[in-house]
């Protein structure tokens, strides 16, 4: 057993930390999120140059050959910086799908384009009636000759407005909740019949409601086996949960540390707030929640690298704990900052909102607890 990072990984971490401390303070983030696309293309190119976008891809696909452990390291730092660039949808979600199931041509185009920063992609999977069940898919792919025609609607598609390619889960056979019969398609954006309703999310990111009205795709745009996408989607979900969890760990660390510094410096009743025992205990609890969640994040990530099947249950436990700990740390960071915690001016509010959104994605704490105990 070895729970330490390698020298290479430590170098990577240094470079991310340096980038964030140089380029990513909260006012810069606010400026970026207010821009048209809600993220910075300039940062995205820098990520490509620094090799971060190549991190999880296999060497034979032009990547660096990292594992989920490397992604964890990166996402934890991104969480500390509250980075908004579309790493999760492009690299983690679509990247996982193509790496796992893409054809040689798809790998060359999508992975190649992702690594060099020229192509942005996202995954459209969620449907309103399905809530957190990703096998509940009614978006339909009708086969006609050499083509498929997609019709339906997907929700909360991250960065869809900026995406060159949208990976879509659609039903090619079976009933609306069957695991069998779901197929993944790559859709070029824009495309005829593809409509986007773009909006900001509460944590400053961008998402879209995406509707498909007979959008035409070729057979070459199918990713993985026809009707057999469920295991790929599960893999994407696992990787996304691990990445989001690591991001949440980073965000929680900032929150408890900011709360410590704030209460040390803010005086009421002639004392720094940090003198009051109830607040000391609260901050100790925030630290403990963070620490336990971090342990489970490491465990689940390392298990996933070894054997994804074994990691399943731990990943449910992890997402539950991330939701619970994130809520506790976030809410108390706000509470202990008093009125200041309510303002958009301090970064606390932004980290708190990010944690709130992370819990809502890929199944919230309740959802994963039920999965964990079932």
């Amino acid at each position, binding site marked *: 057993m070895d729970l330490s990072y390698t020298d290479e990984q430590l170098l990577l971490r240094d470079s991310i930390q340096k980038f964030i401390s140089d380029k990513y303070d909260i006012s810069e983030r606010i400026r970026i999120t207010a821009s048209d696309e809600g993220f910075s293309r300039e940062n995205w190119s820098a990520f490509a140059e620094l090799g971060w976008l190549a991190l999880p891809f296999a060497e034979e696909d032009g990547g660096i050959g990292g594992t989920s452990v490397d992604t964890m390291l990166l996402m934890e730092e991104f969480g500390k910086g509250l980075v908004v660039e579309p790493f999760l949808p492009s690299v983690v979600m679509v990247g996982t799908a193509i790496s796992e199931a893409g054809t040689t041509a798809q790998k060359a185009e999508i992975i190649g384009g992702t690594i060099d920063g020229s192509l942005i992609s996202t995954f459209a999977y*969620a449907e*309103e*009636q399905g*809530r*957190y*069940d990703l096998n509940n898919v009614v978006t339909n792919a009708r086969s006609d000759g050499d083509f498929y025609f997609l019709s339906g609607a997907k*929700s*909360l598609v991250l960065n869809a407005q900026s995406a060159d390619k949208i990976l879509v889960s659609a039903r090619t056979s079976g009933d609306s*909740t069957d695991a069998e019969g779901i197929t993944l398609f790559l859709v070029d954006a824009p495309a005829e019949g593809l409509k986007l*309703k*773009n*909006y*900001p*999310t*509460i*944590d400053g*990111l961008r*998402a879209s*409601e995406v509707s498909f009205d007979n959008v035409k795709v070729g057979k070459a745009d199918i990713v993985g086996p026809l009707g057999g996408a469920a295991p790929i989607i599960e893999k994407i979900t696992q990787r996304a949960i691990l990445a989001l969890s690591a991001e949440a760990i980073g965000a929680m660390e900032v929150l408890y540390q900011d709360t410590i510094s704030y209460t040390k410096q803010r*005086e*009421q*009743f*002639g004392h720094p707030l940090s003198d*009051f025992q*109830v*607040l000391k205990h609260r901050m100790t609890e925030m630290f403990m929640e963070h620490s336990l969640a971090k342990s489970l994040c490491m465990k689940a990530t390392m298990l996933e690298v070894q054997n994804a099947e074994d990691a399943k249950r731990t990943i449910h436990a992890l997402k539950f704990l991330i939701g619970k700990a994130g809520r506790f740390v976030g*809410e108390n960071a*706000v*509470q202990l900052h*008093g*009125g200041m*915690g*309510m*303002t*958009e*001016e301090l970064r606390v*509010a932004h980290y*708190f*909102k990010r944690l*709130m*959104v992370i819990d*809502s*994605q890929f199944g*919230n704490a*309740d959802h994963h*607890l*039920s999965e964990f105990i079932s």
Partner: protein
Amino acid sequence: MDIEFSAEDLTFQEDVRTFIKENLPAGMEMWTKRGEWFEALRKKGGWDVAKWPVEFGGPGFTPTQRYIFDMEMGRNSTPPQLPFGVGMLAPILMNYGSKEQQDRFLPGIRDGSVNWCQGYSEPGAGSDLANLRTRAELTEDGKHYIVNGQKIWTTLAHIAHWIFCLTRTSSDGPKQEGITFLLIPMDDPGVEVKPIITLGGSHSVNEVYFTDVKVPVENRVGEEGKGWTYAKGLLIHERTGLAGIQNSVFALEKAKANAGTVKVGDGTLMDLPRFKNKIGELEAELMALEFTELRSLASVSAGSDPGPESSIMKLKGTEIQQRISLLNLEAAGIYAAAWGNEPIGPGFAKAATGGYLGGRATTIFGGASEVQKDVIAKNVLDLGS
């Protein structure tokens, strides 16, 4: 002991229910027809100022009637009044203000033509309110105070015509003793309001700066140096009001209805044990809190103080409000993240997100929870300072 309301109270309850049925504007008219609603309440015999005593035009409800009144209004989610005038300043003016001040300010407060805001908190004086530093200096002729300083977190200062303020007139002796209660018009050129944007991008609170604002002594409420005593009495009013028990009863029903529209598998979110448990816990606790309010009312009816039970109302009431808002947030699922101009996903989702975020403030304002617990420990449980 008798758990039933008396026959008179039951008649009163019927009366309130009928009144609401006949007068409450439906749906969106709740907002456009607010004025007519308050007018109807006024005509009914001072129901627009339900907590005011008879001599000031209030209905003179008994404590039980007030409880029933609040319950029926809350459960029907009737349009709220802005709290600062009717609920907060008015009782102070009635108890400590001069006859002239009462005649001058109460009518505008009552008919809603004059908006007030509350200028207590300062950057250095939050939980430790007595630490406030906004200075009010009497001019040599004794006719004016010159006010300099800064308030913060002033809710609705940007639409207020007047601000009631705690100011420092003396720095000698205990901090609580040099505080004076002043009424200041917001259109004075020395008053400047700067917005503060809070979680989710809303603007309700502000910073208010005073630069050489000249306030006539007629605008001082009560005696110089007694402002703290006056304000403390008022804070008790504020805190009881902040528990929002009846609104929570309404909000919980609404949360259940919302969750009932969220499909999960073959059923809805309301069928999931974990979610149902949380609803059940809240229902039980709310039931207990409601009866706690009744116990406290009973002591008042019997002629004594609200009783130690009342101190837990704000603490527990706001905690429950937050937990209900969390249920809505959870029910919204992934749509909790959406923050566009148009609603995305279920119709309640955007309000759920806004409500959850905005609701974080309820355990901060009007006495932050941690500090409230200190107060209870000291005053109710006699646990030292």
